[in-house]
């Protein structure tokens, strides 16, 4: 992860003076900074952002997105009913380098609030001869999958940068956040308590360890306010 952070920083800083901003945008340095606020929808959920265009080719953005989705389903291999709570969210500090008229490269750091909780429990009484077992007696299993909290972001975007000639700018970004190997926490109670062993958590972690990037697709509408 450190390597990617370093690469991101080099790309962001090393390429900035590659061309004159006036080449593309025709504005003068005196028009900057320009401040905008915007709304966004991305794969972390809906959110808000504050953009500061330092100069025609460089923009800094502070954004936040959040979305929680609760749904139910069966964990079929375990024959238990699952309550799934998927939380998506981030707070990002991103820099955009406009290297073409409408193309920008984005890089930054993301505080990742994404978390998936699967709470599996039987719904019905279970009978075995004389033995009647309630779902409470059987207990439940809770799997919590959490990626690294802090991770770098790198992406490409389309959209006219903020300038004095336009009130609003629309952006479309595609990129990815590196979150490392997700952590898996396993808790269980009742008769299912042995499920929550470190060996089981390790298996689940291994199942997820290849998922180290989170794709980010975003649409943003930013209004110039200053």
């Amino acid at each position, binding site marked *: 992860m450190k390597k990617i952070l370093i690469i991101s920083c080099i790309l962001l800083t090393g390429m900035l003076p590659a061309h004159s901003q006036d080449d593309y945008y025709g504005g003068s340095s005196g028009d900057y900074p320009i401040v905008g606020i915007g709304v966004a929808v991305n794969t972390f959920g809906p959110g808000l952002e504050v953009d500061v265009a330092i100069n025609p080719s460089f923009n800094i953005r502070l954004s936040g997105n959040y979305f929680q989705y609760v749904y139910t389903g069966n964990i079929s291999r375990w024959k238990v009913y699952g309550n799934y709570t998927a939380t998506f969210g981030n707070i990002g500090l991103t820099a955009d380098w406009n290297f073409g008229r409408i193309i920008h490269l984005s890089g930054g750091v993301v505080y990742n609030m994404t978390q998936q909780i699967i709470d599996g429990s039987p719904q019905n009484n279970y009978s075995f001869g004389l033995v009647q077992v309630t779902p409470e007696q059987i207990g439940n299993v809770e799997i919590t999958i959490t990626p690294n909290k802090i991770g770098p972001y790198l992406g*490409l975007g389309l959209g006219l940068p903020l300038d004095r000639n336009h009130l609003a700018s629309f952006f479309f970004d595609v990129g990815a956040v590196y979150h490392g190997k997700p952590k898996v926490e396993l808790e269980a109670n009742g008769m299912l*308590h042995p499920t929550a062993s470190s060996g089981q958590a390790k298996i689940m972690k291994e199942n*997820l360890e290849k998922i180290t990037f989170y794709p980010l697709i975003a649409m943003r509408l930013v209004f110039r306010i200053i």
Partner: protein
Amino acid sequence: MKITASTIVKSSLILLLFFAMAAGACKKIKDPTEGAKLIVDYNLIKTSWSLKFIDAATGEIINNSEVEIRVNGQYKDDVCDITGVLHTDYIYHSKEGFFGCAVYNVKPDPDNPVIFDLSFSCQGYIPTSVPVVATREDHFIMEIPLVNYNNLPNGVVMQLATAQTNNGILTENLQVTTAAIPTTGKTASLTIPAGTVLKTGDGSMANGSVEATLILFSNMDDESLQAIPGGLIASVEGATDPKMFFSAGFVIIEMTDGSGNKIVTLEGGEATLEVGVADQTYNPDEGRPALGGDEVSLWSYYAPNGERKYEDRTVTVNTKNGLMISLNLNQLAWLGFDWAWNSMCWDGAPLIFNSQDYGCDCIYLEAIVREELSGNNNILFTLPVYACLGEEYPITFMPASLPVSIEFEAPCSPTHTAQQTYYFNDLCSQEIIYIELISGQNLSNVILDVSGYCPEEPDIIIRPTVGAWFRNINDWCWRWTFMTNGYANICDVQIGETYVVGIYYDGEWEETEVYVTQEVYYYHQIELTYDICNNLNY
């Protein structure tokens, strides 16, 4: 817009990096639970009994015949297999000489003890029974000695005789006399005069040649006393609680006709039964050895329901051959001559075992309890105990105000108690009894990790909480251990030796061999029976 070579190179590098990341972000998401198991600790049974059937003469496990177990008594509807399976006919079967049962839906306590009877029948063995009493939730062990007709234990003698009938009428005198019991010199004798009408249980006349069997159990031999059908603590018809008996002897009288029907009643003539009473026999009612003229109760015993029934009082007679009980019979039955010891307590004195050097938390011991009232040192019962160090082990349903001695044996283990014999004036006193254990040898302890699965649900694992038995592969004495959440401590084992570990459940005996090395954990998987798997649908 000017597009320079530098811009193209940089753009290409950025796009390449972007696509590399996008490819990383778009990996197929694997089900996180893939390969992981849902592990269930099947620990709902809080009160259970593990039974081991042994040959009364040899002490070896009866693994070549299946024992049929019938549950009787007021709690019979709460008795189930250790997995929870209830047999509506109340009949269960042993496997390889082992059985396990449990109670569910009832929680035993001293105010509401759970009491039921288990009756046992096995081809080639004398049927017997045992009352089962629990005053607390726990996992108990029982050892059931069964008497092989062809290999009688010490103190048991048997004699057969035949006679002819005509239309159910005995055409000749039938006399059968057992050999003398070696230790007491006493015999039993049955005489049925010619002309007696013999009838079967359904009132039919006996036909053909009849065969009479007379078996006498000594009241002075350990093996015999432990093998008396129904035991010396037995359920009594009409009584809510079992009773303990001081025996003056026990006889089995059986007669079958040419068709194999059991003869039950004798009409038109009276059979005479004479039973010699051992000279050392103790009369607890009088507080002295039995004498001529002492009254002793006559109890019939019916093995299928495991109950004794009070029949009458008989009187001992002094004869030239010593004490004798003589009575006339018009029904054939299994008869005990006993004095009942009426003072019992549900919870006896708690035992606490301690040890400075024993390497395990718990140990399987067999407590041999003898009465010390008569001076005969007669065995009352053997009580298997699974003692966990430092924990109270309350002994259930004990005779009150009766001096006893207890010897503890750890089968096939060098571990022994500090004293060979412990003496107690009253097992019902609530004084804690401390027993010190000494580990005779520095042996190893290993942990067996057992899990069960159903072939159709390989991702669901059942970890049993159940009693387990183990023995050295070259030895015949089984020891008991308790498996919690699939883990069983196998204690006092020798590195380099192989041990057999088994559990009984749902009519099955699951066995595995463990070759003991320096390893601590040994794993074993059980494919569960259809009965269990069929019920694993939440």
